[in-house]
């Protein structure tokens, strides 16, 4: 059974004549990474919201583990999907471990608190992202990159088959970007998790493909999917030009012995392909 299946999904805000997205179909099985790629405001986050059950008024089919996402209560949904937000607004200085423990909410009764085994699971998750040393620090005092890893640890503690990430590497430096990507690779390869992510970086999809993971990319353009497929099939100069209106080059470089990685390099913000710059 597919963990996630969308069939001709369409969504419009109430009292708005035009849909935010339409005609969206894809499916995702265990151990897969699915990247949503598209310019700002193309509806990526709204699509994630419909899948997560935050919006209910969509048309078509949105199935989470075979259940209509509208029919799932929050407590059921949270057993299938965990969510890593794009930006997390920190209010009170909870300790890092307290934050990760909140991933156990769905297994904790309304009138009780996480038990010892929940704490053990939370520590395990924190260990998996390599932040055990920060367990007792206030999470308002750690860096943005560490904060993102804490959010990932919280999602891991939720023990769901799928993790939904909204631009997981936004605002991160090179190092933390790599740390997050490597953590994601481990999650998929070692734990068999599936990841649905919205991203602005086509090269991340190449990175995952290069690591030998099963990766699909969907290009979201003018409210619809322009093309869906593996990174090598879909991410080419022409598509990037259509999607973002920029000039880009696809280059290949050798990183280890015999190991080639593709990368898209942006050249300039041109609206069409007929410039002198393109060969």
């Amino acid at each position, binding site marked *: 059974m597919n963990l996630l299946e969308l069939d001709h999904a369409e969504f419009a805000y109430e009292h708005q004549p035009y849909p935010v997205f339409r005609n969206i179909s894809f499916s995702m099985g265990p151990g897969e990474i699915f990247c949503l790629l598209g310019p700002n405001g193309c509806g990526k986050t709204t699509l994630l919201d419909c899948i997560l059950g935050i919006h209910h008024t969509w048309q078509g089919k949105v199935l989470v583990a075979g259940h209509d996402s509208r029919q799932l209560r929050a407590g059921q949904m949270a057993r299938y999907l965990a969510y890593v937000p794009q930006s997390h607004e920190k209010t*009170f200085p909870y300790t890092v471990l307290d934050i990760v423990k909140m991933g156990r909410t769905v297994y904790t009764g*309304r009138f009780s608190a996480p038990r010892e085994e929940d704490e053990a699971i939370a520590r395990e998750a924190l260990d998996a992202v390599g932040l055990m040393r920060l367990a007792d620090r206030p999470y308002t005092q750690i860096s943005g990159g560490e904060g993102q890893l804490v959010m990932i640890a919280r999602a891991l503690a939720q023990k769901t088959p799928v993790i939904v990430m909204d631009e997981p590497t936004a605002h991160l430096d090179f190092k933390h970007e790599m740390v997050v990507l490597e953590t994601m690779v481990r999650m998929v390869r070692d734990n068999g998790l599936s990841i649905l992510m919205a991203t602005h970086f086509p090269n991340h999809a190449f990175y995952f493909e290069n690591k030998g993971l099963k990766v699909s990319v969907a290009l979201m353009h003018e409210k619809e999917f322009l093309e869906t497929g593996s990174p090598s099939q879909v991410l080419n100069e022409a598509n990037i030009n259509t999607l973002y209106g920029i000039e880009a080059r696809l280059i290949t470089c050798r990183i280890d012995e015999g190991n080639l990685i593709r990368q898209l390099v942006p050249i300039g913000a041109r609206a069409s392909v007929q410039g002198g710059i393109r060969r």
Partner: protein
Amino acid sequence: MTTRKKVILYTLFIIAPLLFIFASLFLGRYPLPLPLVIQVLVSKLGIAAYNLPDTYEALVWQIRLPRALLGALVGGCLAVSGAAFQGLFRNPLVSSGILGVSSGAGFGAALAIILFHSVTPATYIFAFAFGMVAVLLSYLIGRVYNTTPTVMLVLGGVIVSSVFSALISFAKYVADPYRELPAIVFWLMGSLANASYHDIAIAGIPMGIGIAGLMLIRWRINVLSMGDREAHTLGVNLAVDKGLVIICATLATAGAVCVSGVIGWVGLVIPHICRMLVGNDNRVLIPASLSLGACFLVLIDNIGRIITGSEMPLGILTALVGGPFFVWLLKRTRAGGW
């Protein structure tokens, strides 16, 4: 937190208010010696019989004890609902009156005083009822498409509070200036002077339900403070859990306000002092606020009874005593990680 530390902390939470209540039995305009107070308690509890003058018995058992008990309950309620609302609204500036319960109750009391020409049992009932109505109105204003976004709730609370404040002013304006107006003004400044076991029994029901509910749901407040979006994806039924927190905090505050009048400051500052002392995890913060709120109000009431011959209204003293103490603590703990 280790189990040992937890046991010590919780024991402290229970013992501290009891000590403050006990201390207030022999403090006051007529200080009583410790043995005498103990004798009264022992004979009243039927453990042993002493032949004591009725005045002592009346002073300790009929005046000071109910007053201290009610003070502890009211202080605990205000602090605990302040802490819960701060978590729910993800805003450290929020206090127990954020959804309009205090101004609603204030208007209810003023209306009852005008209708019946003085403070009567109807004052309590009106205060409680209007406090609840105010919160219900805030909730209905904040409700959009079956959800209650935090900003809308706060706006609802602001609107309802200012409307009821205006109504309080109107009530003062039309009140009889010699009998009703002073009664309204004193009621609004807050007092425990008329405390009786009857008050405790009646107002104790909503206060007890509110405290019990918040104690039970306290860990969920951590999750709710992550914001609606994240709480939902963590598996929280927002409508139910937010509703429960609002209902419990409102019952506790309305129960407190209807017997004691409007006592500010406790619901804002006690939770903050507790955040500095025990951290932000609501699992510890809620009982800590309950305990410290109880201690604080009993202490303030004792100070009010001792320093002035007449009754100093509580609302004045809580701010005058609490303010400098809060500043000292802010400097001392460097605001505990804020």
